[in-house]
């Protein structure tokens, strides 16, 4: 395909603080349309803070976040809200609205932002629930279903408005290996079917290699991004021992590029 793929998200010279404590300095990366971009790093490296900044919940200490060239944090609140409607977010714990049924959870954004009739909304809700394998659960409350199902229902809500960008916060946290795998497959399907750009914050290696087109590794000690690129290529080509250690769970230090690693 000859056309150049434009970046959907651009992060420029971004500084992140947690309370008064500096966690990340001078972040620079961009995410292209339709790719799955992974933000990875050890616990406490600022992954979640970065996500909060990206989805518009927390103003960064310094720097810019651009969506299709528009600087998010320089817009007024109304424009910011408008931009946020293009996002779908899957929170770590699902964050379904507990006083609503699953159906109402998914229907609410549709009621607010589309001109669909009640009947049409019902149809869309059923479709979205079917996409995540929860047909027939529309009348259930979040407290009545398991954690894994809550997460899938939350994904159905996140994609209710067919968002351009979907953010995942630790999608496999608290899930058994099979459910985690299923969520990974769902992420890949969403990319193929909706053509959405997907940003995943995780430290789960299996997911990183399974779904990631590109990945940025944040490092706690240097408070900076120490690697960016396709995770498999990073593992094969990186000379940075920190990158190799992270991607091999510390089992390989820094071996020469291209060599198979043995236990």
């Amino acid at each position, binding site marked *: 395909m000859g056309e150049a793929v434009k970046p959907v998200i651009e992060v420029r010279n971004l500084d992140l603080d947690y309370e008064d404590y500096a966690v990340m300095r001078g972040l620079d990366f961009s995410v292209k349309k339709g790719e799955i971009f992974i933000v990875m790093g050890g616990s406490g490296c600022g992954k979640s803070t970065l996500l909060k900044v990206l989805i*518009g919940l927390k103003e960064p200490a310094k720097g810019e976040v651009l969506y299709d060239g528009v600087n998010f944090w320089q817009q007024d609140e109304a424009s910011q809200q408008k931009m*946020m409607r293009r996002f779908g*977010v899957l929170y*770590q714990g699902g964050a379904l609205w*507990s006083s609503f049924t699953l159906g109402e959870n998914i229907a609410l954004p549709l009621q*607010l932002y589309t001109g669909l009739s009640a009947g049409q909304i019902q149809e869309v809700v059923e479709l979205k629930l079917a996409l995540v394998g929860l047909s027939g659960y529309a009348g259930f409350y979040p407290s009545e279903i398991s954690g894994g199902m809550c997460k899938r229902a939350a994904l159905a809500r996140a994609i209710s408005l067919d968002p351009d960008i979907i953010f995942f916060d630790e999608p496999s946290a608290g899930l058994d290996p099979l459910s985690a795998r299923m969520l990974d497959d769902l992420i890949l399907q969403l990319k193929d079917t909706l053509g959405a750009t997907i940003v995943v914050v995780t430290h789960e290696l299996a997911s990183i290699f399974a779904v990631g087109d590109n990945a940025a590794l944040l490092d706690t000690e240097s408070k900076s991004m120490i690697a960016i690129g396709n995770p498999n290529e990073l593992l094969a080509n990186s000379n940075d021992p920190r990158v190799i250690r992270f991607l091999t769970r510390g089992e390989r230090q820094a071996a020469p590029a291209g060599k198979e690693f043995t236990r």
Partner: protein
Amino acid sequence: MPAKISFDYPISGTLRVKLSGDWQISAGIPSENEVISELAKNKATVQIVFDTSETGSWDSGLVSFLFHLIKDCESKNIQVSHQGLAQGVEKLLTLALKVHTRDIPPKGAAEPFLDRIADKVLQIYGGILSLLNFLGEVAIAFGRLIRGKAYFRRDEFIGIVQKCGANALWLVSLISILVGIILAFIGAIQLKLFGAQIFVADIVGIAMVRVMGAVMAAIIMAGRNGASFAAELGLMQVNEEIDAFKTMGISPVEFLVMPRVLALVIMMPLLTLYADFMGIAGGFLISTSVLELNPIEYWQHTQSAVRLSNLWVGLIHGFVFGIIIAVCGCMRGLQCERSAEGIGAATTSAVVSAITSIVIATAIITFICQVIGV
């Protein structure tokens, strides 16, 4: 056998520490200070070795003893030989003594007194700003509601109205009747001295309708619904549900706070009216039975004493209290820290700030009424 230490010097400059007995945390362990004071006696010591030939069972008590001893000796430049220590002890020590390079974020060290005062002042200032900010947001949301632009879930609103109104009736009845009875008794004791017991009717009627009905209903609602608003919204904050509203472009104030404020603003005056009635009924019952006043006379006195202006003052109290309770509850809930402790603090602070504000508001309204002569 309890843990014990003893010392000897196999060669000069080397202190041998004999660790005998069972080194269990539950049984108590010797302090490493015993070794330190032994070192102080013999300043020429450059090395410590251990004799573990009589060491019985051990757990992290022994490791903790050794860990602190090694740290102390490090600062005194005395070598500590790990030889002779059990393999498990050795491994745990290596793990604990490993140097971590990550810098530790500053953790609130004890601040000087003036700093703490300044922090507190800034905190209060920040609190006032966030209150004004919140009131502004509520006002804007109300404006949108009037213009029909706000999203409003009728079913949920009705549910909240029911919780703030009908479900509170029993409690309001009980408290108001008792307050009416108390007022009647206190009044009767004083008025009996002058043979003017019938004026109990005036006291109960005016006090209940003008202020007590509203205040009692408000205190019940602050404890009941103000606290539940704070807990509900606080838990939503902890579960990231509030974040989910924000990222959907939905204002939590419009969606969650507005219906609660509106419900209480509608229900508080009605509850006030109800509490007034129950209070007067309580006073009537006790006056006509125990105090043996004439029922018809009592009724006529109540009718002539309680004027319409008193009722309006009472209803205005109720209206203002409704806003106060809802705003305190919802604001504390939305400001809740993301922990179980945070929800507890939010709930407590919602009730405390609501009741304090209710009393202050009562004083202000009473003063204004005095000035304008109502």
